[in-house]
C-alpha cells in the first residue's frame, strides 16, 4: 500500500460571506507528482497557503506526516515547515539579499536539520549547481531574468532537502521555452531528491508533463480526479474546458 505523506480532509475556507474552499479533499502519496488544476480564483493558492499554515482554515484537517497542522503551535509548525519546500508564484526572492544570502537564509536556524559535513557555502553552491546557476551566486535577484529567478527560488525551496515540495503556479509569467525548462527541472529534482510534489497550476502543458495524478478544483471542491489521459478524454463540459486547447 502506498504511503500517504499529506492528507487534506473536508477543507473549508471562507472570506466573510465568500466561500472559497467548500470541503476540499486530497491525498498526496510518497514520490508522486499531484497536480491540482483550477481556474484563476478557484481557491488553489488559498488551499496551498492553508497547507503550510500561512492562512488558517475555517474547518477541516490537514495532516502532514500524521501531524494535523491546524492544531500545531508556532514552534511545531516551524519545525514541520522545514520538511516542506515552497515555490511561490512570483519566486518571492528576498530582493535586498544576494542569491547566496537568499539560499543561505533558511539554513540560519535549521542548519542542523541537514545531515551533512558540508559548510553553508558548499550547500548553497550545490543547490545552485542543481539548477544550473552557480555563476549567479553573487548577483542580486533584480539582476536575474524571470526564469532564473524561478530556478533560484526552486534551489532555495530545496536547500533544506524537504520531503514535500509545493509549487504555486510554477510556470506563470514565463515564456513557453523557459516554462518548459522549469517543468523539466521539476522532473529532474523529483528524481534526484525523491520528493513528493503538489503542483498548483492552470498550465495544461505543465500538468501533462509532470503529473502522475490530477485533481480539478471547481467551486471549491474536488470536481474530478484521475490521470492526465483520463481527464483529457473526459466528456464533461467543465473538464473539457480545461483541455480544449
Amino acid at each position: 500500500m502506498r504511503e500517504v505523506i499529506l492528507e487534506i480532509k473536508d477543507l473549508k475556507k471562507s472570506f466573510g460571506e465568500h466561500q472559497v474552499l467548500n470541503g476540499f479533499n486530497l491525498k498526496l502519496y510518497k514520490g508522486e507528482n499531484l497536480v491540482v488544476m483550477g481556474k484563476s480564483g478557484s481557491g488553489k493558492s488559498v488551499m496551498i497557503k492553508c497547507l503550510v499554515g500561512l492562512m488558517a482554515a475555517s474547518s477541516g484537517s490537514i495532516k502532514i506526516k500524521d501531524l494535523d497542522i491546524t492544531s500545531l503551535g508556532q514552534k511545531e509548525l516551524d519545525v514541520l515547515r522545514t520538511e516542506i519546500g515552497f515555490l511561490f508564484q512570483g519566486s518571492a526572492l528576498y530582493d535586498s539579499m544576494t542569491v547566496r544570502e537568499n539560499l543561505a537564509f533558511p539554513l540560519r536556524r535549521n542548519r542542523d536539520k541537514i545531515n551533512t559535513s558540508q559548510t553553508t557555502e558548499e550547500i548553497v553552491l550545490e543547490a545552485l549547481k542543481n539548477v544550473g546557476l552557480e555563476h549567479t551566486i553573487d548577483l542580486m535577484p533584480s539582476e536575474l531574468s524571470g526564469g532564473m529567478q524561478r530556478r533560484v527560488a526552486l534551489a532555495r525551496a530545496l536547500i533544506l532537502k524537504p520531503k514535500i515540495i509545493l509549487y504555486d503556479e510554477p510556470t506563470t509569467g514565463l515564456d513557453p521555452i523557459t516554462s518548459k525548462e522549469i517543468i523539466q527541472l521539476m522532473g529532474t529534482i523529483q528524481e534526484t531528491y525523491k520528493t513528493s510534489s503538489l503542483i498548483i497550476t492552470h498550465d495544461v502543458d505543465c500538468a501533462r508533463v509532470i503529473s502522475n495524478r490530477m485533481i480539478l478544483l471547481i467551486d471549491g471542491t474536488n470536481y474530478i480526479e484521475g490521470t492526465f489521459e483520463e481527464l483529457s478524454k473526459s466528456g464533461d463540459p467543465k473538464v473539457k474546458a480545461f483541455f480544449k486547447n
Partner: protein
Amino acid sequence: MNGIKSISVKTKHFFEEIGDMSYFAIRFFKEVFSAPFEWKELIRQCYQMGNRSFILVGVTGFILGLVFTLQSRPTLLQFGAVSWMPSMVSLSIIREIGPVIIALICAGRIGSGIGAELGSMKVTEQIDAMEVSGTNPFKYLVVTRIVATTLMLPLLIIMGDAIALFGSAIIENLKGDVSYILYFNKVFDALKFSDIIPATIKSFFFGFAIGLVGCYKGFNCSKGTVGVGEASNAAVVYTSMLLFIIDFIAVFLTDIFY
C-alpha cells in the same frame, strides 16, 4: 444620511486601526525579549538607519541653527538682548525644536522607507517565504526595525542638535564677533540636565513611534503596488501625528516633574 454613514464607517475604521496597532505593539513587546535574537539584522538596521540618515539630519540641523539664529538676531538686538542668543538657541533646539524637526525628517526618511520596504515584501510574498522557511518574519523584520529606530533616533537627534548649535555659533561668530569658545561656554552655562534628559527620553519614544507605525503599515499592506504607496504614505502621516501627540504628552509630563 450617507454623510452620517460615511462618518460612522470612518470612525469605526479609525478605532479598529488603533486596536490593531496596539495589538501589533503588544506583539512587539512579547517578541522583543524572547529568543532567538536577530543581532546581525539589528546591527545592519542600525547601521542602515544611522548611516543613511546622517547627511540629511546633519544638513537639516545645520540649516536649522543658521536660520534660527539669523531670524532671532534682529529682534534680540532691538531689546539689547543679543548676549542671550546662545542660551535661547540652545534651550529651544535641545528641548523642543531639534527633537521634533529631526524626528519629522526621520519619519519621512526612515518611516516611509520601512513602510515601502515591508509593504513590497508583503505583496511579493517575501514575508510568506520567510515564514515558510521557518523564520519568524515578525522577529526578523519588525522587531529589529523598531529596536533600531528606537536606538538610533536619540543618537541622530543628539548629533543634529550639536550641528544646529554649531551652525548657530558660526552666525554669531560672523555677525556678532562672538568666539566659538565663548558661544559654547554660554550654551553649557544655560543648559541643565533637566533640559537634556526629558528631551532624550522623548526621542526614544519618537524612534519607537517611527519604527512601529512604519512596520505596522508595511506588514499589513495589501492591494498590490498601490498598497505599497499607500503604506509608505500612511506611515509618514500617522507617524507625524503620533510624534506631535507624544511631544505634547512629554512636554506636559516634563512640566509636572521638572
